[in-house]
């Protein structure tokens, strides 16, 4: 569940022209790059950073929804939500594995998240305060993520593309799960409808920010596009998302919290109001309402359970030593 123009990518690379041209020719021929293939240092660095940010987003993304598992209103919703949040954990795991093929360990990647050095999708720094937020997160946040992740299935780096294929297959139920919650609310009491509208009001703009800065302000986008790590620009994906989502909101009978949102016949898509980029950067830089809580929760889960991981490793070492001793007799 992720979609954000990569933050702070640096695709700078220092290989000679001939090497870069040969690499680009492979990319242009749609040949996949596998972990042991020669690749520019900038390509490797950009990928590690992007895959890690993606993985961290899945893991941190478990928190706002996980927060509602014990309070889900029915057993069916509880089971679906637990299964969905579990999937996010699985997706984080697949993605960490893909990053590891480039030579960084899981421990190192997790360490970067916990130290605050690594970024994750800013959307998860907003709070899930009502049950309608669970519907809205599934509908909008997973919807935005799918927009981004489907083209990533064709990413030039093999392990990332393969992980994304698995993720997309599994995520197909996530957005439907969220939209179904919204449908139920919108067909329900006035109180439920108001709850749904309130959640849309709070999540709409942050979900548009998930696609990252405008293309004109997105510094390293061109190189990622050329290397086919990225297949569409931030603005292209954002536009697709808006065009797909507005009719879904109309079907629910909800109002988009954007007075400037209107159909543009000429471009065949919706025009929308200006996104508050100050807010975006504030949240990315750590000042969202939940940034501190999210990091605290992740660190606590890690630190409180260090003894568990140490115990398992110690046991494995002891058992291996015992086996060696027996074999030596």
């Amino acid at each position: 569940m992720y979609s954000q123009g990569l933050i702070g990518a640096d695709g700078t690379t220092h290989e000679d022209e001939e090497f870069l041209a040969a690499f680009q020719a492979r990319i242009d021929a749609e040949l996949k790059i596998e972990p042991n293939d020669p690749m520019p240092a900038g390509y490797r660095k950009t990928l590690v950073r992007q895959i890690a940010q993606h993985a961290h987003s899945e893991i941190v993304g478990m928190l706002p929804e996980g927060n509602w598992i014990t309070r889900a209103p029915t057993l069916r919703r509880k089971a679906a939500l637990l299964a969905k949040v579990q999937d996010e954990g699985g997706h984080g795991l697949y993605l960490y594995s893909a990053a590891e093929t480039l030579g960084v360990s899981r421990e190192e990647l997790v360490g970067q998240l916990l130290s605050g050095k690594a970024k994750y999708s800013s959307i998860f720094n907003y709070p899930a305060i009502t049950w309608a937020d669970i519907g809205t997160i599934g509908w909008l946040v997973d919807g935005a993520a799918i927009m981004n992740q489907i083209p990533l299935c064709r990413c030039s780096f093999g392990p990332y593309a393969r992980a994304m294929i698995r993720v997309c297959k599994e995520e197909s139920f996530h957005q439907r799960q969220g939209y179904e919650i919204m449908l139920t609310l919108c067909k329900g009491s006035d109180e439920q409808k108001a709850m749904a509208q309130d959640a849309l009001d709070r999540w709409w703009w942050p979900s548009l920010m998930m696609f990252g800065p405008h293309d004109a302000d997105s510094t390293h986008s061109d190189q990622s596009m050329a290397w086919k790590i990225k297949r569409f620009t931030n603005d292209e994906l954002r536009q697709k998302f808006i065009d797909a989502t507005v009719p879904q909101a109309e079907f629910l009978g909800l109002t988009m919290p954007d007075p400037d949102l209107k159909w543009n016949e000429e471009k065949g898509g919706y025009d929308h109001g200006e996104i508050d980029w100050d807010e975006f950067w504030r949240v990315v830089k750590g000042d969202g309402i939940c940034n501190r809580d999210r990091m605290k929760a992740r660190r606590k889960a890690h630190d409180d359970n260090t003894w568990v991981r140490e115990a398992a490793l110690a046991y494995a070492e002891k058992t291996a030593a015992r086996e060696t001793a027996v074999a030596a007799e």
Partner: protein
Amino acid sequence: MPDADLKPETLFKYVLRLADDQLILGQRLGEWCGHAPTLEEELALANIGLDLLGQARSLYSYAGEIEGKGQGEDDLAFLRPEREYLNALLVEQPNGDFAVTIVRQVFHAAFMVPFWRTMTASSDETLAAIAAKSLKEVEYHLRHSSEWLIRLGDGTEESHRRSQDALEELWGYASELFEMDALADEMLDCGIAVDAAALKAEWDATVNAVLERASLTRPMDSWSQSGGRSGRHSEHLGHILSELQYMQRTYPGLSW
């Protein structure tokens, strides 16, 4: 229903006891989500929780049918007052550290494996079918939690101490699982129920074997607690219910 003398209320209560055990333990495991020791264990705990929730749902639906008053799984799961929940005290105990969660799971699964296995022969076809499905699930829960307890017990000094503490903390709640009362006896007589007391020997053997491999000491039977089967709970259940029932209580009578 197989026996004409059997009152539906009796069977209803018996099924509720079973359903409540699985729901409350599933709810507890749900609290771990996002906070587990490793990513791999995150998925494992959720799998166990989902199995238990699934079992609870089947049991509540069946209980609602038996009662015949139009109550569905959610009415039964969410809308009873605290004294009407009939789960054993073991499953409502807080997650504690990972050792407490694992010991609680070993105790529960070591009981549920022979319980569901015996229940597959129940004269009640619905319960027998639920038992057949659930048996495969709890066999895996037992494997998973036992292997963890072995690693924690025989891991580091700290993990050994924590798991021995967890054993002592939960030991006195295990005996309630084997309790029989008038209701359970009546159900046993008509061929529906399992003789829980008769499962003690297998539970002992399973747990002893795990403890031995884990280099842990079996606690003394110096104390025990019960009351859950008649709705007399620890203070923990009220807090579980305040979360579990929050939506249904705040917005009564709505669909979600």
